[in-house]
């Protein structure tokens, strides 16, 4: 294949944002088109250079053809849509039934999240698996959040030249868990964003809503405490359940829409709107400026993978 055609096909591929195996099939089909076309043009008497120029010109602009190919290939099936919505629907059910503090249900939910996310990730990373992966990191984040006091006292002791307070294994285990969780999250985001920002944003989608909710719950004494203050936090459950349904709807849009713009708009609207709504629900003092800040933080969380994706593709 002439270098100009290879370069043209590479440009098409760089704008496809599809599963690597799908991209390979698409480019394979286009390559065979160029083989046939160049052979015919040479037979007609064109020089190599003219034939290459004509073949590329008659095929169309790389970006616009890639956009059409993306639209034709990116629409997930209804089964994939169903799978992408499931973690949000399960979370909605936990909140609707006020069961998010049930150790059994929470354990089962976390095990299912991690199991399905890892299995899907290892089997070609279809788009729907990013919804599961987004929640799969949440147990780790909660654990890190709960253990921040233990970590802080261990750091203070070490910084003062003393020993880690007993039991020493707790801060060490937490540190290892947090570090490996953080590395895994960044790695997952880089991989997802390297293919398509939409995948990475699907992964980040629950974080603004759940992050804001977690901070709010902490104001009422924390996840582990009982009593009246937490009873207040439970009043937010219906709102959380509805927000999880909103995230499910956004995920469904992101899987079913053909246009990348519509996918991105659905995720950003749900993520930014959801982050602001949960701040409004949990904080009566939140004014317009507070909501604007919540929206900005949510937007930044969702948009950040785009930077990772850009670096991955350039690299």
């Amino acid at each position, binding site marked *: 294949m002439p270098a100009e055609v290879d370069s043209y096909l590479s440009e098409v591929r760089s704008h496809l944002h599809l599963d690597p195996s799908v991209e390979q099939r698409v480019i*394979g089909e286009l390559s*065979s*088109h160029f*083989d046939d*076309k160049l052979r015919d043009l040479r037979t007609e008497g064109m020089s190599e250079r003219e034939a290459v120029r004509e073949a590329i010109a008659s*095929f*169309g602009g790389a970006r*616009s053809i890639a956009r059409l*190919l993306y639209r034709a*290939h990116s629409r997930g099936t209804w089964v994939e849509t169903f799978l992408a919505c499931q973690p949000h629907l399960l979370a909605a059910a936990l909140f609707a039934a006020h069961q998010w503090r049930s150790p059994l249900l929470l354990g089962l939910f976390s095990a299912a999240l991690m199991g399905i996310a890892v299995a899907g990730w290892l089997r070609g990373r279809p788009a729907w698996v990013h919804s599961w992966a987004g929640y799969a990191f949440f147990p780790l984040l909660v654990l890190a959040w709960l253990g921040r006091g233990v970590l802080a006292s261990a750091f203070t002791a070490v910084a003062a030249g003393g020993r880690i307070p007993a039991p020493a294994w707790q801060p060490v285990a937490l540190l290892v868990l947090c570090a490996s969780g953080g590395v895994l999250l960044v790695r997952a985001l880089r991989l997802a964003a390297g293919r398509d920002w939409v995948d990475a944003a699907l992964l980040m989608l629950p974080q603004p809503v759940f992050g804001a909710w977690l901070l709010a719950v902490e104001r009422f004494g924390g996840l582990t405490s009982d009593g009246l203050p937490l009873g207040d936090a439970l009043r937010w459950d219906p709102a959380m359940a509805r927000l999880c349904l909103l995230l499910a709807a956004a995920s469904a849009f992101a899987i079913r829409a053909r246009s990348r713009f519509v996918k991105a708009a659905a995720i950003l609207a749900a993520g930014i709107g959801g982050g602001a709504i949960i701040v409004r629900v949990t904080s009566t003092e939140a004014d317009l400026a507070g909501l604007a800040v919540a929206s900005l933080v949510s937007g930044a969380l969702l948009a950040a993978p785009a930077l990772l994706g850009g670096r991955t593709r350039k690299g």
Partner: protein
Amino acid sequence: MEAHQLYDADLLRGNTDSLLLFLINERGSTYGYELIKEIGRRSKGYFRFREGTVYPALRKLEADSLVRGEWRRIAGGQERRYYVMTPKGRALLRRKIEMWRKFSSAMTLVLKPAGG
């Protein structure tokens, strides 16, 4: 497929599926480049479009289960993606041809000079 300025582009775009389905059905199994050449040959070069746009159109037909794509190894070890009709595609093609015949007959009747 996106047409050049010889005619209203929407006219061809709206009938792309019919053209592709008809040719795939007629040939039994065929591939993208052959379809492009055949459309050009039969229309005597009237239908002109960016060739790359045929592949997304074929993919949409495949996603809608109207055609089935399969890779075949050809001489020289090269692989090529062939498309064959499905029963659903055949049924749709019959309906589209019938619809087009009625539509074009009606258009011809309306466009005939009055009293002709």
